[in-house]
């Protein structure tokens, strides 16, 4: 196999929910930054090698905004990571303000204080799964509906001050926003989500709570440079990313562990001793979606012998970088005992996932608790029978398990 001279058509299809196409290995080796055609039909650069992906994630010469947004390459018809976002002139200042506002609420200390609450929630969901299992004729329960979905939703609702009873509503909107197979309906979903969020923040303005949405309403009202629409966009982003990503990661992690019985057995033998490394390997190898993180070049730049022009779209494949054989021994193998400690599962640099401490806290408690309480857990279907939705995060629609 060799790299064609034609641009690579995205997305690159995968054999199943856990594995990636072999083409990525060829690209990393022969064309670590290569011309590609986005699902929307526009040109972009696809970056697949660890070193370049990491460096570009940390490179301030790229951003999420575009100098001429109307001329920017479109990525998909979804309403998330589909094209440029934010204001080119103020992007860096806006980002700095956003991080300053949100960092205290998502700090490691705050997440540590939240861990007792997360453990309490997980125990309750597992109790319910055990009861459902006892009552089910075939002994099969849905781990997605019973744990992977409700946990991150409950936690982010508490942090943001969003009503958990609305979870089906905002989850439905999130799925539609991230869907690239429904045309304009993704944009309609974003508009509906913004309208929903506007109601929510106005309720917070009338009756503030000790939560992130109330903090943002207050900060926006005190800062004339902080536009109302920008605040709403940020709140939508927090509620979207705050649950969608972790729901998926719990699903992917469960699949990795239950299709590798030796790794599951090792975890059940020593949950507390092994869970942190297991979660890091889930973050490295779990590969949601088939695109990557989107940036636009804010100036001309040279990357691995290729000149990227100002305004070009650059898609950074975290999935490919995290399986780079020049960085990881047996890169495709799920091995929590590996010597390499780094990965790009939460990104890198100034845009590093602000919810990383939250996600790590939730994932560690989920997998330690499952290993402790349900050591005989196994999949109740074939990997190939699992349905994956056509969204940017490629989420599972159900995860049937038994024990």
């Amino acid at each position: 196999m060799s790299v064609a001279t034609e641009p690579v058509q995205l997305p690159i299809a995968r054999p199943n929910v856990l594995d990636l196409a072999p083409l990525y290995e060829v690209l990393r080796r022969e064309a670590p930054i290569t011309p590609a055609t986005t699902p929307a039909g526009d040109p972009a650069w696809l970056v697949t090698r660890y070193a370049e992906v990491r460096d570009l994630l940390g490179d301030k010469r790229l951003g999420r905004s575009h100098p001429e947004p109307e001329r920017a390459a479109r990525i998909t018809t979804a309403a998330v990571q589909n094209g440029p976002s934010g204001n080119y002139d103020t992007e860096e200042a806006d980002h700095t303000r956003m991080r300053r506002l949100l960092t205290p609420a998502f700090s490691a200390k705050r997440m540590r204080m939240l861990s007792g609450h997360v453990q309490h929630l997980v125990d309750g969901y597992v109790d319910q799964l055990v009861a459902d299992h006892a009552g089910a004729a075939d002994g099969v329960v849905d781990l997605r509906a019973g744990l992977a979905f409700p946990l991150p939703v409950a936690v982010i609702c508490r942090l943001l001050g969003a009503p958990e009873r609305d979870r089906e509503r905002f989850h439905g909107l999130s799925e539609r926003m991230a869907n690239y197979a429904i045309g304009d309906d993704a944009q309609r979903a974003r508009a509906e989500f913004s309208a929903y969020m506007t109601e929510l923040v106005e309720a917070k303005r009338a009756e503030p709570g000790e939560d992130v949405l109330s903090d943002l309403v207050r900060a926006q009202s005190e800062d004339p440079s902080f536009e109302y629409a920008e605040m709403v966009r940020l709140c939508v982003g927090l509620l979207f990313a705050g649950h969608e990503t972790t729901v998926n990661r719990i699903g992917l992690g469960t699949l990795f562990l239950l299709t590798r019985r030796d790794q599951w057995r090792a975890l059940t033998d020593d949950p507390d001793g092994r869970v942190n490394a297991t979660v890091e390997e889930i973050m490295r190898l779990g590969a949601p979606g088939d695109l990557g993180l989107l940036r636009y070049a804010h100036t001309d730049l040279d990357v691995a012998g290729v000149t990227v022009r100002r305004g070009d779209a650059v898609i950074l494949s975290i999935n490919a970088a995290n399986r780079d054989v020049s960085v990881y021994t047996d890169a495709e193998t799920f091995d929590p005992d590996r010597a390499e400690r780094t990965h790009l599962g939460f990104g890198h640099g100034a845009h590093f996932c602000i919810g990383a401490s939250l996600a790590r806290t939730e994932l560690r408690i989920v997998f330690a608790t499952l290993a402790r309480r349900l050591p005989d857990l196994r999949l109740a279907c074939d990997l190939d029978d699992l349905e994956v939705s056509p969204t940017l995060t490629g989420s599972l629609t159900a995860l049937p398990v038994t024990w």
Partner: protein
Amino acid sequence: MYVSVDQDACVSSGQCALTADDVFDQRDSDGVVELLDATPPPHRQPDVRSAAANCPAMAITLRE
């Protein structure tokens, strides 16, 4: 082991404080790293190495 941190490079991710909270902390105001222990004892060094390797700003330097 001798640990140093670069507060100007730090992006306030808090991953060091999550990994080794007896060695690293975050400033309350902006989440920037604060070093609590520049010479951690041997049994804490594996976590400190993880924290340094996983720092998204590469703001932690170890001398061993």
